[in-house]
């Protein structure tokens, strides 16, 4: 998956219920352009940066996220493959249960709608 697709997918993960108008307001990118980018049009560097900035701002709202990142780097260096697998399983379970508790599970990418 290209860097652009990854970024858009991450963005939709952090803001799953956001309308195109809201995405436009958050990133400063025009609404029609947002629609095109969500549908795979190639991105300019400044647009990629705008999405990354929005994601980073959202992540900064949760101080434990940077802690988690730091611990994950240490874990990757120190723990065995088996131990890492257990941690990944644990995290996957927490995420899956959280997804079940959502009002509905919305597939990424496929349902961008103009507000």
């Amino acid at each position, binding site marked *: 998956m290209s860097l652009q697709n990854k970024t858009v997918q991450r963005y939709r993960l952090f803001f799953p219920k956001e309308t195109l108008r809201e995405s436009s307001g958050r990133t400063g990118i025009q609404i029609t352009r947002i629609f095109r980018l969500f549908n795979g049009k190639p991105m300019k560097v400044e647009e990629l940066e705008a999405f990354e900035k929005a994601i980073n701002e959202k992540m900064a709202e949760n101080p434990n996220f940077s802690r988690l990142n730091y611990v994950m780097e240490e874990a990757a260096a120190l723990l065995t493959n088996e131990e890492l697998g257990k941690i990944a399983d644990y995290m996957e*379970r927490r995420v899956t*249960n959280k997804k079940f508790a959502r009002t509905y599970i919305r597939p990424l990418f496929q349902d961008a709608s103009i507000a």
Partner: protein
Amino acid sequence: MRGLSSLERVILESIGMESLTYDEVQAQSGLQENVCFNILQALIIRGILKCSGNKYKINENISPLMMEEINGLEARKAESLEIMEAVLEQNTDKIFRFQKVAMDSRDEKIFKAMLSNLESFLKDAHKKAQSSVPLKNRQVVFWGMGEVQSLMNQVMTGR
């Protein structure tokens, strides 16, 4: 994710060998409406459940590979941990004891015999009430023991 989430297991256990409607599954499992619906859909997509008419049924033709994934040791362990964690984090009516107990070999034997009595009591209680108590109102009970030294070694090595 490998295996089943404890939420998915509750749905499967609610259905059991029967064919249940959505309302019946929800009444048995006690899950919120949207959660119940999302899980049923996820299980159908994974091929574990079948939906015929308005009834949900467990697929009889689950592949051995999928069976191993659902009921494998690692998956069951992860599922038990999920439930135990929930018991620990319970805010109301919490019953949980955790102690390092000094026991001589005689007392250890007595304790194990008591556990065996407890197990048969639970088995009888379950047999007596399983038809009248829905899954959502059943109690989760667990116990275990281990020697501190060997447990610490396991913690250290991560195995």
